[in-house]
């Protein structure tokens, strides 16, 4: 498996990050959203392969909860296991912070992402009605969570 190199996102990276965000999402975050996250001290990571930026993650720490606010892989690099590697990195961060739970929201229509999260041990916690904008009105969001209380030593296939 190709090894990802990981670095911290800086304000100067936002243009590149936003390009990936726009390519990957029908309703992308604005540049301002990323700037706000950086200014608020959220943990923001860049993932590169052979010096090419291929993805990022944005994580907010709230006491013992890790909120995965954004995780993204450049379209050309999707379906190659990079999403799983990025998620593993987020779980490593969570374990390092002695967090109790990782939570995230995903569009109800995004089966591919939900499959990934389920395969990593996340469970559906609730559905937020009309949480996301959609082409026609609004779309539900699925709140998923991974309890870390049972997680000190993941299977070799996870971490």
């Amino acid at each position, binding site marked *: 498996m190709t090894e990802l190199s990981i670095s911290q996102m800086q304000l100067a990276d936002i243009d590149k990050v936003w390009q990936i965000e726009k390519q990957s999402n029908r309703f992308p975050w604005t540049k301002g959203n990323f700037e706000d996250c950086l200014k608020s*001290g959220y943990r923001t990571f860049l993932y590169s392969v052979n010096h090419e930026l291929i993805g990022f993650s944005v994580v907010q*720490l*709230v*006491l*013992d*909860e890790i909120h995965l606010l954004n995780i993204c892989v450049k379209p050309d690099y999707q379906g190659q296991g990079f999403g799983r590697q990025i998620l593993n990195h987020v779980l490593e961060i969570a374990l390092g*912070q*002695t*967090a*109790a739970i990782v939570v995230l929201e995903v569009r109800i229509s995004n089966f591919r992402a939900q499959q990934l999260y389920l*395969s*990593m*041990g996340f469970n559906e916690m609730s559905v937020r009605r009309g949480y996301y904008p959609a082409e026609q009105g609004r779309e539900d969001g699925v709140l998923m969570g991974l309890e*870390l*209380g*049972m*997680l*000190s*030593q*993941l*299977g*070799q*296939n*996870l971490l």
Partner: protein
Amino acid sequence: MKLSPEQYFALDLMGIPVWVSRQDERLTPAESQNEAEHNGHIDYSKPWLVITEELLTAAENRLLNAIFSSIDIKLDDVMVITQQQIKALDGFSADKTIALVLGETLSQKLNMRSHAALPCKQLENCLLALVSPSLKQLLNQPQNKVKMWQTILQLRNLKAPQFD
């Protein structure tokens, strides 16, 4: 249920994650610190002081670690004392240390007063202090996390104007 090595191997081949209970009984810095405190070693130079009713359990200690980590503070910079060590408060300087009192009941025992200018309280030795729910409360009633999050952000902001 204990699995045999063969079963672990088979699960691994199938790509099924194996979960085990978190082994968190190992001593973390704060726990080691608590031991040190009981031997009379209190580090008065730490910028953060946490006052608890009693010694922290492993789960409470993990939560405390996560709480301070979430505002970028390492437990190495935090001194934890219990109410039995309250006399040690006199050794801390209001210029260097800010206190977090865990639990309303404990805060009443400490005879705290409101600060004249800042949105916080003061201990008898003038240490700035904030009061939050106890860690036990937080673990039993997660809805208290909202108050704890507000307090911990306030704690961070309190430090910034005073010392930076």
